[in-house]
């Protein structure tokens, strides 16, 4: 029920008023209120009340200017930048946000890793802004092209920073690549999901993100295991902290999904520690994957636009546990076995010298061989092998059914068709 609710709710979020419709509606309601004031009330300036409540992007009050006329420097350094924070492309304060606030913040970055993180964040911000505009129906092609360009610039900047540090610190470079790659993957997911609704589709942005991903060549075979392990520890701790403080911002089921994946990541980390003894590069690869997943989860928790457009499952698909895999294998085998039992029953009514009988019984024999292979694989914990063989078993049983069908036998079904047959 939860997934259905989640999906329906998410889809329904595409139904909303445009900014224009909303302000028109507000206007109409305000007019009504003005014509029908509360009895005995002082003349209240409804407009300024309404404006201060709505999410207007302009500088709201004349008095603000008046009060700060004397402190012009204060205005320039504190007030405007603060007001600019929510600005979108096209707003008066947007250049302040992008060229002043963000550049200033960038100047305070110390470590190369921080610089790269900052460029990545700027890229994500551009995308988020574009999405807000797109939803309000205000994203013109020119604006979209500008944002696509900005995406390219920021991801290029991140990449050249990565190359710059690769010379002195390969490990840092690799981990920064993982971070950038995860951010791009998340953005790609969000864009894909949004583009399903053609009214708000943004092909230029998707193109820019794909290009950025394509030119990111991930080479993580030479990372130090210890470094990536400790980075993973830091990030998972961050993720847990976020999870703990989110309160009402995400739903209970989303929390559960995230928690489940964090536990998954912990399992993978422990497995990697064991793998390290025999195959270090495989262990590193596993940690790299875990790091990517962790960053995506953090992105989900900290980014409203992401939450609104993708589910946790879409972002970080869940690998089934061993138990779940075993269950699936057993179910497949049981289903196949049931069908084959029915086949055998009909088989016993056939003449043993006929060609049909020989063909079918040969196949059944082959089936039995495979069945015991699968059972052995299960017992020896070779899940991959068992999965492959179970797949064959199901196919074989289907083929046998079809054959018997073709020969004119109706296999007596005692229940609904088993799901694994579909």
């Amino acid at each position, binding site marked *: 029920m939860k997934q*259905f609710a989640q999906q*329906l709710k998410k889809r329904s979020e595409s*139904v909303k008023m445009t900014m224009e419709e*909303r302000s028109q509606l507000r206007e109409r309601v305000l007019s009504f209120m003005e014509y029908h004031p*509360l009895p005995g009330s002082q003349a209240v300036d409804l407009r300024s009340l309404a404006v201060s409540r709505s999410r207007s992007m302009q500088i709201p009050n004349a008095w603000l200017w008046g009060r700060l006329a004397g402190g012009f420097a204060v205005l320039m350094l504190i007030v405007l930048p603060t007001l600019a924070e929510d600005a979108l492309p096209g707003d008066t304060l947007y250049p302040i946000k992008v060229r002043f606030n963000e550049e200033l913040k960038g100047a305070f970055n110390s470590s190369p890793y921080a610089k790269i993180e900052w460029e990545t964040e700027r890229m994500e911000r551009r995308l988020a802004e574009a999405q807000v505009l797109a939803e309000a129906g205000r994203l013109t092609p020119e604006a979209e092209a500008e944002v696509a360009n900005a995406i390219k610039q920021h991801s290029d900047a991140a990449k050249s920073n990565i190359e710059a540090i690769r010379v002195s610190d390969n490990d840092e470079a690799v981990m920064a690549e993982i971070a950038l790659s995860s951010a791009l993957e998340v953005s790609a997911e969000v864009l894909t999901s949004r583009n399903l609704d053609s009214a708000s589709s943004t092909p230029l942005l998707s193109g820019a993100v794909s290009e950025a991903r394509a030119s990111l060549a991930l080479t993580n075979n030479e990372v130090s295991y210890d470094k990536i392990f400790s980075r993973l520890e830091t990030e998972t701790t961050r993720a847990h902290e976020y999870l703990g403080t989110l309160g009402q911002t995400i739903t209970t089921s989303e929390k559960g999904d995230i928690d489940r994946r964090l536990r998954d990541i912990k399992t993978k980390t422990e497995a990697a520690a064991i793998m390290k003894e025999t195959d270090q590069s495989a262990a590193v690869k596993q940690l790299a994957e875990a790091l990517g997943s962790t960053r995506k989860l953090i992105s989900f928790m900290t980014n409203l636009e992401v939450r609104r457009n993708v589910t946790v499952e879409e972002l970080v698909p869940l690998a089934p546990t061993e138990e779940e895999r075993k269950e699936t294998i057993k179910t497949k085998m049981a289903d196949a076995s049931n069908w084959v039992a029915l086949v055998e029953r009909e088989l016993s009514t056939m003449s043993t010298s006929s060609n049909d009988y020989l063909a079918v019984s040969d196949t059944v024999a082959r089936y039995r061989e495979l069945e015991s292979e699968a059972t052995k694989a299960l017992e020896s914990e070779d899940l991959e092998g068992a999965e492959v063989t179970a797949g064959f078993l199901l196919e074989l049983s289907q083929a046998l059914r079809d054959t018997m069908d073709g020969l004119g036998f109706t296999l007596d079904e005692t229940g609904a068709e088993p799901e694994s047959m579909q």
Partner: protein
Amino acid sequence: MAEAQKKPKTGGSQEERFLEAFEEYSDPLFRHAAMRISDREKALDLVHDTFTKVWSYVRSGHKIDSFRPFLYKVLNNLIIDEYRKRKEMSLDSLLAQEGVNEGSFEELVEDSAEAIAATLDGRHAFDLLRFLPDEYREVITLRFVDGLGPKEIGELIEESENVVSVRLHRALKALRAIFDKEASSIHRPE
């Protein structure tokens, strides 16, 4: 990016509280109306009428503690009125006739609503909602989009909680039936 606005619940004049309610609920109310009647202009009108009606209520001296259930109730009644107006003209009336007479709890035992919902794709369901009669659309939207519980829905539409549960269940079943019908018309039989 802007996060959900914090609502200062303490004090504030009636005008302020009303305007806050407008900022907070106009979007979800619009969403609900548009999903029920599939006519954007009309939906906007209904939301406008909802707020003006509630304002008139406030004006006539009543105090509203929580705007949300009140707004939803007014909107819902307006939607139902709208539906009654259209009834003669629309196909929906034929569908609606086939009985939203309430079943019983026994129905819920076989084939629970959970099980049915688990087989449905919520995204697809969104597209198929318009094929349902309004009584079904009402409960599905209130439950899954507006997030009201069965008890709250009961209070809103003035039915018992049991009736709401059964109706939800039947609505999901109807959705399932539409899905299946769609699917079978796409796949040619072998």
